């Protein structure tokens, strides 16, 4: 039973990371039908911005995270304006190729600027906490709590503010949104900013538990895509639920069945769910 709760905790940590990354991906897909393959690399870039914030500029952990969020939000806006907006009315495959192009561009940029080495992200929260026989680092608890706060904030923004409603309006009917005076291009930029900002927050949270490197975006983006397919393409609640399902399948599968097959088990669960709900858990109408 003790092992069970320990794995539950680990699943929550990983699930929180997946949720923040998948949410950004789902928002962009849901609003603009852009499969942003470069999303994992925005996450990577966010980790480096925070890393240099802490190690070079010595601004402290939380200011470094804020810095990473702001910088990546700006990168997101630039990406929308320069890469994706001109492709708005182009065939979807062009958008996909552009996204992959951005991925390789950022990957190479990071290799050149930061080098290919793995780096350790220093955290001030490395103490170990014991409670009820369970062991966790402070950083792990911070990941869970911070992710929860960010998700609640995002939900509040989307559901309770008029600006948040404009995102859903553009997602559901772009022409209708323009007719009530919403500028769909501005909403697109805002969505990219939020999406990349969330990725930066996720990266800063998890970087001090794992390591950072220019290729850290690859595994994350694969899982995030699997999650939004599982959740129903573009669904925000689907992305969150899907993230925790995948994370729990990994942590429990790894513990109770075989750690060698951890990913195989997790993706097996995914395939199983999609067999019964082919359009995902929270598929949108049509």
């Amino acid at each position: 039973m003790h092992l069970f709760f320990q794995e539950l905790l680990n699943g929550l940590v990983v699930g929180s990371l997946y949720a923040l990354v998948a949410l950004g991906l789902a928002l962009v897909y849901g609003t603009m039908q852009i499969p942003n393959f470069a999303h994992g690399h925005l996450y990577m870039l966010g980790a480096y911005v925070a890393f240099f914030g802490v190690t070079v500029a010595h601004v402290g952990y939380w200011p470094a995270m804020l810095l990473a969020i702001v910088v990546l939000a700006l990168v997101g806006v630039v990406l929308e304006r320069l890469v994706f907006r001109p492709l708005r009315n182009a065939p979807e495959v062009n958008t996909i190729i552009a996204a992959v192009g951005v991925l390789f561009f950022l990957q190479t940029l990071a290799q050149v600027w930061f080098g290919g080495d793995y780096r350790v992200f220093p955290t001030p929260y490395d103490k170990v906490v014991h409670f009820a026989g369970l062991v966790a680092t402070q950083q792990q608890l911070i990941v869970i709590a911070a992710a929860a706060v960010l998700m609640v904030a995002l939900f509040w923004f989307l559901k309770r503010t008029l600006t948040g409603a404009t995102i859903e309006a553009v997602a559901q009917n772009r022409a209708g949104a323009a007719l009530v005076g919403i500028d769909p291009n501005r909403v697109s930029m805002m969505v990219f900013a939020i999406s990349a900002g969330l990725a930066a927050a996720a990266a800063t949270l998890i970087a001090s538990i794992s390591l950072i490197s220019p290729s850290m975006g690859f595994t994350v983006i694969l899982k995030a895509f699997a999650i939004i397919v599982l959740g129903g393409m573009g669904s925000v609640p689907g992305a969150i639920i899907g993230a925790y399902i995948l994370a729990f399948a990994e942590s429990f599968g790894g513990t109770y069945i075989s750690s060698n097959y951890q990913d195989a088990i997790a993706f097996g669960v995914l395939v199983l769910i999609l067999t019964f709900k082919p359009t995902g858990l929270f598929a949108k109408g049509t």
Partner: protein
Amino acid sequence: MLEIKNLGVRYGAASPALEGVDLTVRPGECVTLLGANGSGKTSLFCALSGLIPSTGQIRFEEREIGRMRPAAIVALGIAQCPEGRQLFPDLSVEKNLRLGAYVGRRDRRGTEAALERVCTLFPDVRDKLRSPAGALSGGQQQMVAIGRALMARPKLLLLDEPSLGLAPKLVEATLDAVAEINRAGTMVLLAEQNAYAALSIAHRGYVLANGRVVLEGSASALQQNELVKKAFIGA
């Protein structure tokens, strides 16, 4: 006052969707735009709202709006209830309406007053405020679509075939509502296939065919016109 001069719209290399259209809506007027499918009514509305590029002049209250963006046009006081309604299906009716007031969002009191006005005009809408717009019947969705356009507190309301697909009784109710909106001082430009009903509430009318104005006149003159009778009223 809306003044359109020599308006043209062209999609690609095909023959123009609109050519040389002159049209005016004077203060307080309800003007109807008659024409068969494909005659250019929707193109005219899209051009007015800035959704598609056009040539020629579109002046609204002494300002040239032909090259303005949709949001700026709504902010000037031209709101459209488009063909096919274009609601936000998964959002509640109330959110659909509140988004209609997006350009006037800083005027909270004005927004609440507009919401109350829409609910008074369409009592069915008040009962459905919490439902997703997509779950409503066609007639109710039409009310929401008109209501959403009214939420912008427009000086000129553009209505693109509001009665399309509605049962005859609902057509009457919808057009009664339009007449009431017009009586309260809003200029209305109403595109309709149902010429008889439209002419009964309009002051003047234009008939479009193949992207050109082929006939214009007062509502009563058009009602008596043989061409209109033969083409639209079926008498």
